[in-house]
């Protein structure tokens, strides 16, 4: 079984539209949406949810006001400025935890002399196993302003692999998040190959450089395809030659095409939509990948 991750470094390069087309072309794959922070793949694959699961991870400090003696120890030990000290009109101190700043390190819980701080597990989101018209899909929704996206990504990948193993499917297609931080690292470590979808802009080039440094760091073989290549043909040439020099294999170019947006509006993949030049090019990229 092969696990193929599609990433982009820079957001909005068309990664999900391309992945949805690959899903339509693949035949016998499982899909994993690991862009858990802004998951969009379901808008095209239109999954029917089979099982819904709670994702809890990490903890959050909550001060029990009835037991708190206002000693201020938690305020002193918290390195994330998450403990807020306020004073009432009568001069009485009050300590509370700002849930958005709390990292869940538990240091205040450990050092509170009267054990007045609770440390419940956080519900950080939900994850789903679904059926789509192209095969099974594992996806998730990270709670608003929640942490631990890296752990949720690992979970989605693990479940997708399990389904592939059990169902005898030979490919897991992973939609990865933008950037180079923890959810991206969680998406690529241990995968078999990464396709980076980029665009011919200075920003795209800059971000491709960084994301390829990351794939090198984790020793993942990397393939590059340029979307909207005709926005700047010269830049396309130079991005491609930089990519090859950095060790990537080129999979092809996709032109700017309004039909990509029209397909999205219809809720179908670009290759199913079947109109415009991008559809043919995406097919070409997929066929090239199959020869690798």
């Amino acid at each position, binding site marked *: 079984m092969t696990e193929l991750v599609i990433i982009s470094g820079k957001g909005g390069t068309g990664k999900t539209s391309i992945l949805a087309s690959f899903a339509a072309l693949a035949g016998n794959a499982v899909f994993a949406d690991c862009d858990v922070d802004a998951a969009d793949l379901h808008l095209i694959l239109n999954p029917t949810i089979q099982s819904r699961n709670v994702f809890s991870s990490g903890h959050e400090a909550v001060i029990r006001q009835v037991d708190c003696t206002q000693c201020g120890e938690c305020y002193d*030990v918290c390195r994330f400025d998450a403990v807020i000290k306020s004073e009432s009109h009568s001069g009485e101190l009050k300590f509370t935890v700002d849930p958005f700043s709390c990292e869940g390190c538990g240091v205040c819980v450990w050092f509170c002399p009267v054990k007045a701080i609770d440390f419940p597990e956080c519900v950080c989101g939900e994850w789903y196993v679904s059926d789509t018209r192209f095969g099974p899909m594992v996806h998730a929704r990270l709670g608003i302003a929640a942490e631990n996206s890296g752990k949720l990504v690992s979970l989605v990948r693990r479940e997708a692999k399990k389904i592939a193993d059990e169902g005898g499917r030979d490919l897991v297609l992973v939609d990865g998040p933008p950037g180079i931080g923890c959810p*991206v690292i969680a998406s690529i470590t241990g995968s078999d190959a990464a396709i980076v979808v980029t665009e011919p802009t200075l920003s795209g080039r800059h971000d491709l450089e960084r994301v390829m*440094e990351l794939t090198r760091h984790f020793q993942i073989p990397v393939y590059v395809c340029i979307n909207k290549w005709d926005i700047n043909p010269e*830049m396309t040439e130079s991005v491609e030659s930089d990519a090859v020099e950095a060790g990537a294999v080129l999979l092809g170019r996709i032109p700017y095409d*309004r039909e990509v947006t029209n397909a999205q509006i219809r809720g179908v993949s670009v290759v199913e939509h079947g109109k415009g030049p991008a559809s043919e090019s995406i097919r070409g990229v997929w066929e090239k990948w199959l020869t690798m």
Partner: protein
Amino acid sequence: MNIAIASGKGGTGKTTVAVALAQTAAGPVQLLDCDVEEPNAHIFVKPEACITHAVNVLIPVVDESICDANGKCSEICQFNAIVSLKTKAMVFPELCHSCGGCLRACPTGAITEEEQQTGIIETGSRDGLEFVMGRLDVGQAMSPPVIRAVKKHTKQDALTLIDCPPGTSCPVIAAVRDCDFVVLVTEPTPFGLHDLILAVETMRELGLPFGVVINRSDAGDRRVEDYCRDEKIHLLAMIPENRKVAEAYSRGESITTAVPELVPLFRSLLEKVFELVGEVRT
């Protein structure tokens, strides 16, 4: 005043809007690039006289001659970043959140802390615009420490514009925290709408005032506009699709230089934001 420019979905034109606002605003202005995983604003600002400094985090170091493997450190650590083995404790720096818990909990005093670089900050300026950017080192997982370090450069007496990372999780929270207003940039597509809704829910949860800019406003459908109307969300500006904008962007040219006709649009966008912030404050 601090104004964050954010978006649920990446690639909607957040950086373009942030740079354009910074270049059209009057008075002392600073632009902070907090998209530290993939910072791009410098490409358009082209800052001069840049100074680079390291952003360090504190990582525990165990003195093996003192450590008696009592295990208190691994007991307190919530992130499995320090593990007490049979004879000594071992640190996994890439998992460490630098909370200082193990240092405090260790009864033998075997743990000290050492600074380790996790990213850099670059400061510079261009035509009166002060520019600060953070860049996470490749291979590092956690961007909030670098984002917080960038935000330390916020000046009280200036207009501070903050280019945020995409998404709705911890890096975004670190970037928008303590801002007076958030400008959410989106595009009129199903993906744009879906990710905008998540961003709106996040801002509501955080209690931050916000408004929406629709970029490439004629390149999709009307659902984003309808959503904003139904939800009574301030629609701050609509920027029409323009091949000249896309081409200038690809060359690293800022939108206000490439398409000066758009300058008034950004001026009035900023005025609307000032008005709304004023309403919130009074």
